[in-house]
Every structure is written in C-alpha cells, then in structure tokens.
C-alpha cells in the first residue's frame, strides 16, 4: 500500500485527465493542488476551479478528502467548498482512484443535483428558476474562477 500511493500519483501527473490537473505538495505527498476546468456547455465553462485534495492515512480504504477553494454557485457545494458527492462518502470503494474522484467532481459541475443539496439556498434557486440560477453560476464563474 505504501508503494501504491506514489505510483498512482506518478500516473496522475504524467497522464492527467482532460481538463484536470493534480500536483502533490513537495513537503506532503498526500496533499494535492487540483485544478478542474468547468465543463463546456455548463454554466461553469471556461472557469478554472482550484481544489485541494488530501489522502488520509486510511486511503484507499477511506475516500480522499476534497474541497473547492474557488467560490462556486452550485447546489451540491457549500460556502466552504465542501462537496456533497456519494463516492466521497458512503459509496466510496477502494477500487476508485483520485482520477475517478476528480472526474466525478467535474461531472457534478455538468449535472447539479438540487434534490440532494448541501447549499440549500442555491438548490432552492435551481429548483425554482433553473435559468436564473445558471445565470448566477455563470456570473460567479466569470468573477471568481479565472
């Protein structure tokens, strides 16, 4: 398990998924600076979102911890950047990897799920007037995710 970590990191750095980069800190190989590009066709398109990811001692038996550092208007991401995503919680499996997690977060940007909200006010907005909520998401993207 001790050798699995650097190998996974190596692959992640050498062969990144499109629109995603993850670099480990020099002084802590379990701690990554992540950038996810907002998916095209979503209100987050053209945004570059900063995240941080940490592999806890129990990884891969426990999921990585991830949060957004860039402000984002999304029903499943709260004001502190915490993400509501099942694979980061009870649906985690040791077969999943950092890459899968980051791709899932990118997919979450394309498909917000206001029925399982973390930011309840944003979710309400999305449910009541999706167009207007998407407009705000786009505004925030242009304002903060550059």
């Amino acid at each position, binding site marked *: 398990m001790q050798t699995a970590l650097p190998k996974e990191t190596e692959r992640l750095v050498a062969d990144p998924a499109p629109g995603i980069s993850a670099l480990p800190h020099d002084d802590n190989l379990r701690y990554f600076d992540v950038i996810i590009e907002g998916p095209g066709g979503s209100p987050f398109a053209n945004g570059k979102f900063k995240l941080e990811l940490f592999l806890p*001692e129990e990884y891969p038996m426990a999921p990585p911890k991830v949060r957004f550092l860039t402000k984002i208007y999304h029903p499943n991401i709260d004001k502190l950047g915490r993400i509501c995503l099942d694979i980061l919680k009870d649906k985690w499996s040791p077969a999943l990897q950092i890459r899968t997690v980051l791709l899932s977060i990118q997919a979450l940007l394309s498909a917000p799920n206001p029925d399982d909200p973390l930011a309840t006010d944003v979710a309400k907005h999305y449910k009541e007037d999706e167009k207007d909520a998407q407009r705000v998401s786009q505004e925030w993207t242009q304002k903060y995710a550059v």
Partner: protein
Amino acid sequence: MSAKVPRNFRLLEELEKGEKGIGDGSCSYGLEDGDDILMSNWNGTIIGPGHTVHENRIYSLKIFCGENYPDQRPDVQFVSRVNLPFVNQTNGKVDPTKLPVLSNWSRALSIENILVEIRKYVNFFYYFLATFARCCREMASFNNRKLPQPPEGSVF
C-alpha cells in the same frame, strides 16, 4: 508514511466536531464567518461554573488560526471581561507563555483542547476565590465572636 493532515482539512474536521457539540456542552466553538474559506477566525464560548445564585456565566473568546496552524498555536483572546492571571487586562489577549496548553503547543492539540483547559482554570480560580472569601468570612466571624471568659484570676 504517516499522514500529516494539512491545515484546511484539519480545521474542517474541527469545524464538524464543533458543529456536533463537544462533551457536556460547557464549551463550544465555530467559524466567525461561515463564508471564510480560509477558516482563520473562530468564536469560542465557555460556560463558567454553576452552583451559585449567579448561575452559569458565559465567556466569549476569539481564536485566530494562522496559515501555519496547527504546527503553530493559534492566538486566543477573551471578548468577555474576565480576571485571570493569563489574560491581559487591557485587551483580553491570552498570554501563551502562561497557559500550558499554548506554551506546550503541539499539532495534536486543538481549539477544543484550549477551551477545555481554559474552562478548568476559570473553574479553579472561581472555586479558589470562593473558598478564600468563605474562609475570610469565617475568620472574621471567629475573631468577632465574643467567647464568654471566666472572671480574671479564677482557678480550676
């Protein structure tokens, strides 16, 4: 390789613990501003000792976690006026050299540990002062008491 939890994830853990409430509810803490993505400024509350007519005094504190937290101890400051030997009487700042949890700080310690320790001192000084006051009262009443004395010169 042991995992060294980075500052932000450590503070998120502390926040979640604080939101659930700790121990008997005599201490609590949370972010000063729920929007503060850096999670630097915290509020703490300590409920002082009960058992008196002036039941349960509430003390508020501010805790500042800098960018090197938890490797570096946080700054702690009382908002409520309180007379304790480790609290600066002009600005409420806690002197870190006078409070063991801060002078012997390590990254294993947390905001919760600080509040719990401060509460112990609050209680200790409260009981110390209360006991001292009671002794003074007893001494005074003892000195004032007029014990009837046998007439001078009488023998057994």
